[in-house]
């Protein structure tokens, strides 16, 4: 589909509309169309509820393009990139890891606890925390993988259940064992991490250096999944498990590997907040990375570049919520926009995919019919 077939027939016999547009163009155009459609729909909601959509969008652009807000956009995009990569790894193996939410909380909590028990030099300590988080996330995802491979339990159901169980287990461990009360401070958290485990800010209170880790994760995802032999096997197994099995690729092994990788990456999603900002785990933990990560991965078509751009878009929307509030426009409209984007992008993808498939079929049919037409 990606490469237009060479035309053996005289060009005059071939109508122009049958020429296939390049896949990248179609992808970009349909994604832009989906986002535009989402903005229009959210605009209608704004208008119906008595707010001026033009004003709202102007305010968003106005506020969002300030330097500080642009830094905040990148900052907010950081965990989303990581979560989206975690989801995308699953999608590439035809697995739906809806459990990124639980996996990142597990990773975050375990790193927050384990990080306080060791004394290490700065870089090593950060690495230690990252490894703990990845291991915890992978282990939590691994439960779903084992259940799927050994017992045939659907990974969607298993990870939904594991999300809720993760929350309960963390709440319990936190309340019973790892609360750390500092006198005069009502904000109860775990014991704070020593400074050796902190990730420094690039711009004070605006942008943390963890964004480099996130970009490295995306780059690694590209290398491993798109460029390596292993990645090829993974994608092959995801695209057609039966065909891949005939080629000697065990789909069970691929399910386990993909799920563990996905969980390991998911474990990192809470780290920007933990190592860069709060330095301790508390009940006011971040949430929604898992589900927003699904939206970002789908909007970015599971492609590394697409994921970065989509995460930045979501980061942008999050960053302008505050200014909207000041301008007397309900800030929750950004949540609505993000949700509508998720719906429109999958709908537009479906519609476009169907049209492309139909065109390909028409073109093939036309090409097949042509020699016969000439013979007649």
């Amino acid at each position: 589909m990606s490469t237009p077939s060479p035309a053996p027939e005289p060009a005059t016999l071939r109508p122009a509309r049958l020429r296939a547009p390049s896949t990248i163009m179609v992808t970009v155009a349909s994604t832009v169309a989906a986002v535009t459609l989402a903005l229009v729909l959210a605009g209608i909601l704004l208008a119906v509820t008595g707010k001026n959509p033009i004003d709202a969008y102007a305010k968003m652009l106005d506020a969002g393009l300030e330097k500080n807000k642009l830094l905040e956009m990148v900052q907010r995009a950081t965990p989303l990139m990581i979560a989206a990569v975690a989801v995308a790894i699953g999608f590439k193996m035809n697995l739906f890891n809806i459990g990124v939410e639980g996996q990142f909380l597990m990773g975050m909590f375990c790193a927050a606890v384990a990080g306080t028990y060791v004394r290490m030099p700065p870089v090593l300590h950060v690495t230690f925390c990252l490894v703990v988080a990845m291991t915890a996330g992978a282990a939590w995802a691994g439960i779903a993988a084992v259940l799927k491979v050994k017992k045939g339990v659907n990974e969607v159901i298993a990870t939904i259940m594991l999300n809720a169980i993760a929350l309960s287990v963390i709440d319990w461990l936190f309340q019973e064992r790892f609360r750390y009360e500092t006198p005069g401070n009502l904000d109860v958290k775990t014991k704070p991490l020593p400074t050796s485990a902190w990730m420094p800010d690039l711009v004070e209170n605006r942008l943390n250096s963890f964004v480099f880790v996130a970009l490295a994760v995306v780059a690694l995802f590209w290398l491993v999944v798109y460029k390596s032999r292993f990645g090829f096997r993974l994608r092959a197994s995801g695209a057609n498990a039966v065909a891949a099995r005939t080629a000697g690729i065990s789909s069970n092994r691929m399910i386990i590997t993909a799920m563990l990788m996905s969980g390991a990456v998911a474990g990192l999603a809470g780290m920007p907040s933990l190592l860069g900002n709060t330095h301790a785990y508390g009940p006011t933990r971040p949430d929604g990375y898992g589900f927003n990560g699904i939206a970002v991965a789908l909007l970015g078509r599971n492609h590394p570049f697409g994921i970065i751009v989509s995460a930045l878009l979501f980061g942008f929307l999050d960053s302008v919520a505050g200014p909207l509030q000041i301008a007397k426009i309900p800030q929750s409209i950004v949540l609505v926009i993000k949700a509508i984007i998720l719906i429109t992008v999958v709908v537009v993808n479906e519609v476009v995919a169907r049209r492309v498939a139909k065109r390909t079929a028409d073109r093939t049919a036309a090409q097949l019919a042509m020699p016969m037409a000439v013979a007649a």
Partner: protein
Amino acid sequence: MSAPTSVEAMPAEADRRSGLSVFSNATSRTRALLIAGVLFMLLSLTRVITDGGDLTSSQTASTTLLVTIPILLAGLAGLWAERVGIVNIGIEGMMIFGTWFGGWGAWKFGPWVGLLLGILAGSVGGLIHAVAVVKFNVNHVISGVAINLFAFGAMRYMSELVYTSDIQGAGISQSPQQKYPIPRVNLPFLAGGTIGDWKSPDVLGWLERRGWFLLGDLAGITRGLVSNMSWAALIALALVPISAWVLWRTRFGLRLRSSGESPSAAESLGVRVTPLRYVAMAISGGFAGFGGAFLAIVSSSYYRQGQTANRGFIGLATTIFGNWRPSGVLGGAALFGFAEALQLVGPSSLPKLFLFFSFVCGLLVLRSIVRSRLIPAINGVIAGGLFFLVYFQVSKIPEPLTKSAPYLLTLIVLATASQRLRPPAHAGLPYRSGEGH
């Protein structure tokens, strides 16, 4: 949970033998009743031995009912959706619609209007899901996730618009207090209800206070279920047999289920799958919306953000746990509700359940020995022993762990009894009308 029978293996076959529904299958119904009776006896025994009055008190029973209803409705929402072939991850979101519109309607126009608005709002959510998955063939899980995100965002947006600071008691995450609730009923004679102005005796209450083995427990539970019961709860409970009847006893239900088993086969026989799926999703969303509105109107008297507290997902678990049957869903919801209620009413009674579990294990061991099966017997002895030990060691179960019980149990059932589960064959798979012939 319903007792699975061999009939489940082939749905078409089972339909001919008119045995799919638990409500009509006499052998499985007697068996289920028998099992329930034995379990109840063991529970009563545990209560007497441990002096754990809360286990079967009328207060526990009425609280169980109150927390069971939203889970039950969410479970039925999952049941209706999956039976027509659509996986509904968006129950949580549809419940959020229900809580908001239920809370708002009840505050503005009174509880019954609120309930109706909540149901309608949930239906709209179900229809959005249906449009996405039926018309545009979007992946069911993705659409469900999108609806959850959308419902949360949109309802928060509505709160920001409507519940401005000049309304007394309102805020961005909370509606004002409703003026009056849905009326409640006490049955006369049984639970001391009134007939006209005359207050009838409270027979069950008297029996419960005696605390006799079996009789006291039965009185406590029954009294809890018939006293101070909201009409909304009664309606919700009635929806269980109604769902079973509609889905397994009517032409509409047969068509609906056939569209969840094999839509192309159904369509080839003239069933109009697409409209059916819209109708079923409107019903599914309506159930979820009812569950949400119940939370906002009956369980409390105002809307609060996050009121659903993942009950939509518990409902999904209940659908699975209940083996995609109305009676199973009711059983699962009651079980999960019981755990939650006990945590609320008498947390100290929770560990006593471990003794109950070890009794159950003991009974299973006896059964294995009678059938001369060694390995299950040994496993049962080990499990029972462990439960017995836990009972002596544990004095309280932390609340977070009780909360995870529904999910954990569902995972265990999925992992250990998946051969006995029979989901609709085509649930969650893509289908386009006219294709696949």
